[in-house]
């Protein structure tokens, strides 16, 4: 391609013609803060990991929770509840550890494909973490929300003078479906917002990674 040869000639001829940055300016530059995508990914990920941790803690410490503990103890499934909480924390810690080790692997002097793949894998860890958290809380909400509604219904019925209150099957079914739908919609919206942030941050990286993968197909 003769145009490309012409460009190459010009490129090489002019390669020394840039206004030079002084050593002094370079000194100043290396003390400036980076604004790289990786740094943003790190900040956003830490916020996300932290939010999961905070919501987990909030779950165990609020008064609302103490009332639940009473309820759970009353039901005789306290052991399961404690086990679930421990599992939640183990999983959260596992994700934080995995994120940290992946993040440490990001090296700007790797080849481009590997660098992109490490960054995307690091983000994937956080994505899995978010998916886990959303499903955990959705499940939690359905089980406890459902139970609280059930208890409330019975309580209301007995206040109205019913001696052995029972929830009719159709009400139970409808309320269960409504609860599941509400949780699903809520979770879905959160997931959409998450995907949007994720997309804004990673679109370019993903495009470039796809492009590199395509070359080697």
């Amino acid at each position: 391609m003769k145009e490309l040869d012409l460009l190459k000639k010009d490129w090489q001829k002019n390669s020394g013609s840039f206004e030079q940055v002084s050593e002094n300016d370079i000194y100043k530059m290396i003390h400036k803060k980076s604004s790289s995508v990786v740094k943003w990914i790190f900040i956003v990920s830490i916020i996300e990991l932290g939010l999961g941790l905070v919501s987990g803690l909030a779950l165990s410490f609020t008064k609302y929770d103490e009332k639940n503990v009473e309820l759970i103890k009353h039901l005789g499934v306290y052991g399961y509840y404690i086990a679930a909480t421990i599992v939640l924390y183990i999983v959260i810690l596992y994700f934080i550890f995995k994120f940290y080790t992946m993040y440490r692997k990001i090296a700007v002097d790797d080849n481009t494909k590997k660098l992109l793949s490490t960054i995307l894998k690091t983000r994937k860890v956080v994505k899995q973490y978010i998916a886990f958290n959303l499903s955990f809380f959705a499940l939690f909400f359905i089980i406890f929300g459902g139970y609280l509604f059930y208890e409330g219904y019975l309580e209301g019925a007995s206040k109205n003078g019913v001696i052995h209150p029972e929830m009719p099957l159709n009400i139970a079914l409808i309320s269960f479906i409504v609860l599941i739908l509400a949780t699903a919609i809520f979770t879905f919206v959160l997931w959409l917002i998450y995907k949007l942030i994720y997309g804004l941050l990673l679109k370019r990286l993903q495009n470039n990674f796809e492009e590199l993968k395509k070359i080697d197909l």
Partner: protein
Amino acid sequence: MSENLEPSFVKQLQENQNIIHKICRLYTAGEDAHKDLFQEITIQLWKAFPKFRGESKFSTWAYRVALNTAITLYRKNKRSIATVEYEGKQHFTHDIEYNYEEEEQLKLMYRAVYQLNDIEKALVFMYLEDKDYTEISETLGISEVNARVKMNRIKGKLKKILNPLGV
């Protein structure tokens, strides 16, 4: 980061800064963006410098980090306030015999290269820098054969951009 690394880094970077300028020229439009990317690449090089063992030449290592920064890490955002000011202008040297037609062709060619995507630009950049396909494939993490194939496709794409009707 250890203090005594600084003078050695700054000196080597100062000597090799044209590598960065050239990448900035390809990946940014306008002086501010050029400065911005130059600074980000400098920061990334400095951050990675403690790991640079001198097994390869500083310039080879700098090529890789600089390209990676342009392709993956750089965010095309306006943040000129935080940028160190320097004159980023390029002085073009012209032969005494000024070839108008060639100059026009060059302009079109530069414009065509700007329309390529990030990865294609990287290949073109290394091609213009006379890098062999071994280095191109190692830098991008693709196979040598496919790097060649891709370069040929890019040439085709450039031709099409220059002459969309194929006349």
